[in-house]
């Protein structure tokens, strides 16, 4: 459905998106995840044709975005971040305007408006001004706007940014509902969001794709890794701990971690996922007489993967 190859965008000297390549198939709900400034919005803007890529190409439904932009725009609904709709229009007027400019036939309009009022729950705010709506309601109107011509592809930039937990849940519900039939691409920097709504997650950092897999597969690979945290009362030096525990069978890597309570030193130990190294590590520590203050296995979540992949530096 969407195929991007070597997509790059420079703003002056700054490279916002750096040669990314991906495919999105029909009916997929893709979450574009990354810290602020990672290039998510720029990527979405290039897919929608709002920005022209510095180099690289995008094909959507077999059409090239450079040559056939107008046709592509017809198959796509896009809601930019924070839903910048015209503030002084009534919700109803705005949606009618959108329907008109998107070329929806007059006879279909009322019917479609009613469908969307039901889907997005905006039936009773049709005669209010867009500018006076709460963020959550505005976002719903925005989604209704993007869906008005029943496009194949729906693109949402940070659809839940700045909403309260109830509003977030409602927007997610709407996105899931739409995702049953349409291709949806959404960007977010909130991990649980992508986890809850997306079939597939693509993590972007500093303009590059650092992970791209089905949500379940990413979760599995997160769970498969073994990380153990250790803390000792200041006894002996760190190098001694590292050299001793590094030799334990099944330990892949051990490193010192800064911080923690004063008077203690902390270590992070990466183990072979195939075998449980905890027993062997404990036995080894018992031989030394060091005082153990902490010993726990980290619950590996997507969050940890995300942080690891997108860490500064």
């Amino acid at each position, binding site marked *: 459905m969407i195929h991007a190859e070597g997509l790059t965008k420079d703003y002056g000297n700054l490279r916002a998106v750096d040669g990314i390549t991906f495919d999105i198939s029909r009916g997929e709900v893709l979450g574009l995840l990354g810290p602020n400034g990672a290039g998510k919005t720029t990527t979405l*803007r290039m897919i*929608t*044709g*709002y*920005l*022209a890529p510095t180099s690289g190409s995008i094909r959507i439904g077999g059409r090239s975005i450079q040559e056939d932009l*107008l046709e592509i*725009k*017809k198959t*796509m609904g*896009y*809601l*930019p*971040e*924070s839903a*910048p*709709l*015209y*503030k*002084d229009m009534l919700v109803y007027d705005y949606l009618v*305007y*959108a329907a*008109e*400019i*998107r*070329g929806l036939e007059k006879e279909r309009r009322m019917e479609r408006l009613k469908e969307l009022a039901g889907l997005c729950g905006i039936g009773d705010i049709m005669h209010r001004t867009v500018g006076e709506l709460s963020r959550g309601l505005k976002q719903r109107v925005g989604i209704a*706007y993007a869906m008005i011509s029943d496009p194949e592809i729906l693109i949402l930039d940070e659809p839940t940014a700045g909403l309260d937990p109830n509003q977030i849940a409602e927007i997610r519900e709407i996105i899931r509902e739409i995702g049953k039939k349409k291709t949806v691409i959404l960007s977010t920097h909130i991990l649980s969001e992508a986890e809850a709504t997306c079939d597939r997650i693509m993590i972007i950092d500093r303009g590059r794709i650092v992970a791209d897999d089905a949500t379940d597969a990413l979760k599995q690979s997160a769970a498969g890794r073994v990380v153990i945290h250790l803390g000792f009362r200041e006894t002996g030096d760190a190098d001694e701990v590292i050299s001793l525990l590094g030799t334990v069978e099944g330990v892949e890597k051990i490193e010192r971690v800064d911080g923690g309570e004063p008077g203690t030193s902390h270590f992070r130990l990466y183990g072979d996922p195939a075998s449980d190294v905890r027993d062997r590590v404990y036995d080894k520590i018992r031989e030394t007489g060091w005082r153990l203050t902490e010993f726990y296995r980290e619950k590996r979540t997507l969050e940890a993967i995300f942080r690891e992949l997108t860490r500064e530096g």
Partner: protein
Amino acid sequence: MRAFTVFAKELRDYFVSPIAYIVISIFLLVTGWFFFTPFFLFNQASLRDFFALLPIVFSFIVPAVTMRLFSEEFNMGSYEILETLPVTTRDIIIGKFLAAAALAAALLVPTLAYPLIVSLLGDLDWGPIAGGYLGALFLGAAYGAIGLFASSLTKNQIIAFIVGAVLCFALTLIDKMLFFFPPQAVSVLSYLGADAHFQNISRGIIDSRDFLYFLSIIFLGLYGTSLALENRK
């Protein structure tokens, strides 16, 4: 068709908000005062003074009307929505330009009362009146295109207004400042002045060169706008 949707939306914006009414009121106050104050002194049944005044008044009224057309959209971010709708940039520009030109025309409608009143007072020659209004439509459209261009340059409406007004004033006044320029440049510069072309038409002289001049200004303004928008990508 889609240009028409943009046009209808912009025009409705002018008239559902106070903008159109405020601008029309100011325009009528300024032209009414400056036209009728000396009118009874000269004791002549003509609208020549009104049309002589029009280019100067349009120079700041029209950019005030057009300043929001793009700047406001850039500033609010709604331009991103507009640009990703299935419309071409050309449709957007033409729609907004027509809305500006239509508002300039709407400014002139209440002033039709002037010739009616004057015709009661004396024997009015209707030829120059018709020419004057035709010319005023072209003048308003040309300044609208310049104002639109100024608005496409910045997201700050004040800057858009100042740039637009300066460009329009320059076109209005340039043929009155010819003595500042070297003689070789004078003939070119005098052709560039909007005022002379407008006064020709408003005297009832229908010369294709004058209309061609206004059409060229409109074209340049709209072309500049499209370059400015393209540059944002």
